[in-house]
């Protein structure tokens, strides 16, 4: 496909999608959203250029191997299991604290959120891996 509109748009839409995916991730604990959907959106945003141009561009542009994303995500998940074990004595127990942001109620941050971030990165990695394999001409 060779659409100029899509090619120009891809530059901007990409970043919008990434920002949107982060919003999805952050609101995820109590509202619809979360790591999985956020990760899918972010993965798609990274693939956007590949759709607009040829898939090979996408592979060239991606400097980081998808395995790194997956490993990063899984590591975050693994780390998020432990604070509960250390502080409360039970594995995976949620530890929450509030980050004070002026003029707001503050933002609640906890180990489940860390878990969500882990899912986010792991899903990005998997999505990119799928797209790599599908665009493989061999």
């Amino acid at each position, binding site marked *: 496909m060779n659409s100029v509109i899509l090619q120009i748009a891809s530059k901007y839409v990409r970043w919008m999608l990434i920002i949107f995916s982060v919003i999805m991730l952050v609101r995820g604990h109590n509202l619809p959203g979360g790591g999985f959907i956020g990760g899918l959106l972010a993965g798609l945003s990274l693939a956007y250029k590949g759709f607009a141009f040829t898939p090979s561009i996408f592979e060239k542009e991606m400097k980081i191997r998808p395995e790194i994303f997956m490993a990063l995500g899984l590591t975050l998940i693994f780390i998020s299991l432990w604070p509960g074990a250390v502080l409360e004595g039970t*594995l*995976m127990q949620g530890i929450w604290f509030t980050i004070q942001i002026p003029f707001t109620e503050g933002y609640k941050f906890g180990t489940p959120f860390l878990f969500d971030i882990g899912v986010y990165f792991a899903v990005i990695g998997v999505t990119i891996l799928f797209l790599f394999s599908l665009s493989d001409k061999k």
Partner: protein
Amino acid sequence: MNSIALPLLLPFAIAISLLLVRSDKLSKWVGPLGSLAMLAVAVYLNFQLQQNGIMTLNTGGWIAPFGIVLVVDHLSSLMLMVSALIAFVIALFANRNLTEDIPMSRFYFFFFTLNMGVNGAFITGDVFNLYVWFEVMLLSSFVLITLGKKKEQLEGGIKYLALNIMGSMLFLAGLGLLYGKTGTLNMAHLAEILRNDHHASLMSTSMVLFFVAFGIKAAVFPLYFWLPSSYHTPNIAVTSLFAGLLTKVGVYTLIRFFTLFFVQDQTFWHTLLLIVAGLTMVSGGMAAASYYETRRILSYHIISQIGYMIMGLGIFTPLALAGAVFFTIHNMIAKTGTFVAAGLIAKIKGTYELKEVGGLYKQNPVLAILFIIPAFALAGFPPISGFFAKFMLLKAGIDSGQYLITAVALLTGFLTLYSMIKIWNEAFLKKQPEEKSQITEVKLKIMDYMPLAILAAASLLMGLFAPSVFEYVMQTGDQLFEPSAYINAVFKK
């Protein structure tokens, strides 16, 4: 009791590190050492179990029945130990037998995720969580089958995946129904509700879905077709791993479900289990007798042996359950052993076709002895493990008046013996067929024998120390038959 989660965390951590460091040289060490560590964890947990009784962990601090609870009881602990032993042996075996086209780091990544799934299925006390571990297992095993990227592997893998996904869906459907009816998915809570339930026939819809789902996983009589059509395609290390672990997880869940909470309608369900067990034994044994390719013989043979485990569950007395557990662990070890031996024969001769090999007894007496131990264990010769396992099952059958299934089990023993003797005759005793002889026969090194030697020794030791194994499995059988200890441990009464 955070240490209960170690059988999950350890393979998870190893898998992550294998994803980060993709060095094939390093994975060669990580594989055996990692699985050895799993074995150590399992033995440690068993030690703890002997001291503290049944151990539970309420993950995330949510008390049962609201959160997911991990439970290590006698059955789980035993299965953890044996599966970790199998994993260790297969890691040694894989190091010597993976072909060039399979990257070590990839193999071990999925090897450890598979083990995480297996361990998770063994220790979880929550039905939905069990489903998740089944999926972890299914996905990793699918990748392991198709790792060689050959055409027939993909074909076998697709068959495997298709039928097993069917099983998972039925599992999920049964789970949904069960949750709708009882409002809980915690196994101990289900047991508490269903054991005192007088409208038990209403549970039959969920039961039949679970039965079919686990029947597919465990490869029982009408549902086993995925197994023989996929197990002969992957690398022999992968096949041996599957032979030792996968179907047995299905058997484990059947035992768990049909002893803990699906026990109200025994006249129907446990009779059905007995019928299925008999048919599984005979059909698997007959099919095994008709093949001349070692992996196919042994694959059908797995099915035949599953029948014995289901038989123990169907008879449903403490002795029968203990016999089923004994048979399961004996079978995991001996079955993996015969597959490893088949791999070694193929390594020397370059083929799995029995018609094209021969003369191994003269050429390699060590392999002959190492093959005959697990083979005779499967056939049930004293003093190796299989004899005692079968003896317990037969005695339980006669004690409770189930003569028909006992007779079938006895006769299937001859079929087993026939298959084992066939491999023995064709591969070891008969002369090498001249026109088929290979020019380059591979000489085995000492590390090639190691996995088989460990399994043969384990099988032999289980036979020689049968009284202490017997004591342990009787404890397990009693606890399965009367699960109040399990329920009380989960609810910390």
